[in-house]
């Protein structure tokens, strides 16, 4: 049980990271990668 919960927590953390990235991108706040993309577009 301990290992299952531990793995679930890790999945939760990885999901949190990717969810936060998606939400921030949606809100239009440019990160490092976004900045590079915008420069290329120009």
């Amino acid at each position, binding site marked *: *049980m*301990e*290992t299952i*919960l*531990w*793995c679930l*927590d*890790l*999945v*939760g*953390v*990885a999901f*949190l*990271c*990717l969810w*936060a*990235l998606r*939400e*921030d991108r949606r*809100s239009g*706040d*440019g*990160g*490092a*990668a*976004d*900045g590079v993309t915008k420069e290329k577009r120009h």
Partner: protein
Amino acid sequence: MRDLFLLGLLPFMLYAMLQRPFIALAMLPWTALFFPNAWVYGIAGSIRYNLLFAGVTLVAYLVHKHKPSFRLSGLGMLVLLFFFWTTLSTSMTIGIPDVAWEYWNRLLKVVILFLFVLAIVEKKLHVDTLLWGVVLSVGFYGNLEALKFIASGGSHMISGIDGHVLGDRNELALAFVMTLPICVYLLGEYGKRSRALQLGLIGTVCLLVFAVIGTQSRGGFLALLTLGAYLFLKSDRKILLSVLIIVLIAALANFASSEWAARIDTIESANEDQSFMGRVVAWKLSFIMAMQNPFFGGGFKSLETFSVWNELSRHFFEYSWFYTGDSLPPTTFARAAHSVYFQVLGEHGFVGLFLYLTCLFASWYKAGRVARNAKRAGGPPWLINMAVAFQLSIFAFAFGGAALSFAYFDLIFTLFGLTIVIQKRILPAELAKLKKHQNDVQQVAVPVPAMTASHSH
């Protein structure tokens, strides 16, 4: 298997962390409180996650184009001044210099985390991600241990992991209590979006309460009761909370062992309890150390240096008004201060304690002021709830920490930083949004009579 799992997910986490410094920042308290190294036994255990994540946070911050302006504020200055003071006290330590510098180095890492919070966090999503990181670390451990406690019928005693920042069960209990308001805030924000999150967070709140009981920590239990009363006073949902409290008490009654009840009963006769009076003896020796070194104190961990403890014990009877019952300082070993206040007093003198107390009070007060100002100005409910959660969490630390040597806990310094952020950055931004919205509404409303007037001409 755990190694492979952790190593398999790590690239995804690192990718997101490198893209956004606030995600990397959220992983700092997670790695500090989750302590991944304690759970793996193979190759994944050789990685220093806190160092790796701190490096990634710094790189992501430097590379990130959009950096908010750095606002230190009065509270930020106080935290830095406190850290500067500890540097002076460490350089003049009466304990073992190597040990004092090691603990200074730990505080340095906590202060760096605090500065990262000020430099990076600027909006709700950033704060929420950080708070989720706390719930997924402390909350996870609380859930796991509480389930063991329930499965054992209340006989499993919950304790921390050796070598972990929350290694002591009393400190662990306080961390559980501090996490409760954060869970309640996240439940209000994300519970409606997803049924799974709602159930997960309600379960975590209930299991954290069980986990506090499972540690058999009297300080943790008192902090839990006080937080419950404070939460009840602050809550707008008093009926729902009353039902939840009754259900929890009924459930806990089945699991609290007679050993636990006997231990809790000793709270009433604290002045006769040897364990508690042993703490009072340590408080008195910390006080004596501060009287002998009023400005800089003795430095980190000086009370636990046996030669210092012995020397202070010679002056034990000097302050007779400081009641210690029949208890005397042990003569074969030294003890920790067992109170964040006496710990800071002994280690950094009266000036250090003044700075520390001011930081605690100012953060608690500022969080309350953010909630009041947001409410008065018609600000978003989430900001009010967030500020109240911080206030409750800081209060729980200030109350529960009175009997623990836990002054430099990562989470309390993170809360100091977050309080500054919501006061200096998020509240003004939300009020400006509100004002802009009101202006827009007025502009839409005003031209109508003007146009009518021009037509009439």
